[in-house]
């Protein structure tokens, strides 16, 4: 019989707070983390269609002399490391007393070390000196630099993998970490998602894709508005989220505090289009149904969905179609919110941060507001969406994430015990 998997620790680096407590307080009061991008160094913002993002202005990586790990990796992996350290401390795990071979790391990363990548490429072309490319360039830009550096920092010798499925990366990282524990490959997993690629090239790329909000430059806090009629694209964000997963047996043996149980996961492909979701929402519905089946939970038992809801015109509409297909009339009673309304779309970190928000909601019987949901779009409005926080006793929750490459992921969480 597969092991049961529980969440015992959390850590977060986000545009509305570094640390779970600051994040959660800011989330509940509906604080926006979206601000104007002043410039990309010498590159002015005039040429960019979008000029706002969920930036973490207060993030400071540790002093290199104090932290040999952080100094060797790019900003996203530094954030991942910071979130992971908080999560491990929060879990109460005493790693010296644990078997390193039974602790693994599963990272979800969308873009990776683009900050250093862009910088070194620019320097190479400007200087014409290949020998001046930084020796740490390759280990920094490889997508597994976060999972690698975390393993080094915490001494995790179990499975160590990176999943890159664009915007759904860390939902799959959490799901696959759960599978590692279920299948007995590990007792403890660090499931982490991170991205920090608000960089000149990546940001320009998303602008060229015409995927970003462009109407709210003067009022950045209004730009991320999932399910609202005034939405006009997503807002890019940065950050990291880490969850410590353990087998229930392991957590019980060490008398750990358990936040929630992870009971279901599904991963599917729409096999449809690299960046466009299928309009009928049926593959999204199928993914939710498979996750519920994995959890042995009926749709009527679901209380809350933390939606993918990026604030794109079609994406939000298609997700609600999927919700209606799965839940029928119950779609009118379940609570739904969008963490991206607060912090923007943190890409590889989004699934992990949303899962942390969902775990906190199960524990605290309250969900955070969906910011700027002031003029509900009839095509994707649901009664359970609100621009205010909502208090309700919750037992079963879903977390949705969908990504470029036509992929979908859904997690099912259950209140514990």
């Amino acid at each position, binding site marked *: 019989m597969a092991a049961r998997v529980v969440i015992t620790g959390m850590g977060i680096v986000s545009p509305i707070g570094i640390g779970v407590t600051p994040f959660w307080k800011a989330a509940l009061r509906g604080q926006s983390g979206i601000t104007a991008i002043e410039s990309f160094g010498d590159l002015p913002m*005039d*040429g960019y*269609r979008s000029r706002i993002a969920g930036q973490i202005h207060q993030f400071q990586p540790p002093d290199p002399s104090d932290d040999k790990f952080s100094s060797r990796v790019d900003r996203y992996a530094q954030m991942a490391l910071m979130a992971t350290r908080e999560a491990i401390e929060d879990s109460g795990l005493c790693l010296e007393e644990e078997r390193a071979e039974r602790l693994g790391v599963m990272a979800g990363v969308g873009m990776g070390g683009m900050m250093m990548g862009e910088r070194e490429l620019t320097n190479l072309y400007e200087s014409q000196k290949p020998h001046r490319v930084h020796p740490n360039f390759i280990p920094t830009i490889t997508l597994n630099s976060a999972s690698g550096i975390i393993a080094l920092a915490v001494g995790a010798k179990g499975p160590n993998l990176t999943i890159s499925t*664009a*915007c759904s990366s860390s939902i799959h990282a959490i799901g696959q970490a759960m599978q590692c524990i279920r299948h007995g490959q590990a007792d403890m997993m660090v499931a982490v998602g991170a991205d920090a690629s608000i960089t000149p090239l990546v940001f320009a790329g998303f602008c*060229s*894709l*015409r*995927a970003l909000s*462009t*109407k709210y430059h003067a009022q950045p806090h209004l730009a991320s508005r999932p399910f609202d009629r005034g939405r*006009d*694209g*997503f807002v890019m964000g940065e950050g990291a989220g880490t969850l410590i997963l353990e087998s229930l047996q392991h957590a019980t043996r060490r008398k750990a505090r358990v936040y929630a149980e992870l009971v279901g996961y599904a991963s599917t492909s729409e096999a449809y*289009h*690299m*960046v*466009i*979701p299928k*309009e009928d929402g049926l593959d999204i519905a199928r993914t939710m149904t498979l996750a519920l089946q994995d959890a042995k939970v009926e749709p009527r038992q679901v209380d809350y969905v933390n939606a993918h809801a*990026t604030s*794109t*015109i*079609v*994406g939000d*509409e298609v997700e609600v179609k999927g919700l209606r297909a799965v839940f029928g009339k119950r779609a009118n009673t379940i609570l739904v919110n969008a963490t991206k309304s607060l912090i923007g*779309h943190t*890409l590889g970190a989004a699934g992990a941060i949303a899962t942390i928000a969902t775990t906190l909601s199960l524990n605290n019987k309250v969900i955070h507001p969906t910011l700027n949901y002031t003029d509900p779009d009839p*095509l994707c409005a649901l009664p359970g969406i609100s621009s205010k926080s909502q208090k309700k006793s919750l037992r079963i929750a879903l977390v949705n994430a*969908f*990504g*470029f490459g*036509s992929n979908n992921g859904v997690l099912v969480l259950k209140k514990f015990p």
Partner: protein
Amino acid sequence: MTTPRQPSSNGLNQQVYVTLADYLRRDPAALHPDDSLRDDLGLDSLQTIELVYQVESAFDLQIPDEDFGRLRTIGDVVTYLGERTGSIHNHSSPAQPSIKAKKPSTRTTTPTPSRKGQSRPRTKT
């Protein structure tokens, strides 16, 4: 924003059709002003973005998102570029008969149904 070029109206038409035909890999004479980018040419939203990107490159200008939704047909693109570059033009393609034969199907991808009034591309992220 860069200063647009100022081609003559005929020159503008020629340049637009050549640019579009180049992206579509078709003969410019096979394009008609009434051709819908989506329904007749079979472009999905990403392909439309790519096509507009080609136009931006060719004419050295930037087309803002709020104008993007206007570009639904070949004629829309010509009209828009005429406005942006200050050229007067008509909608006829430069090398095609006045009465156009039925076009062969050029659909290479399944078009996505439109949402009425939608003026932004449709991406998943």
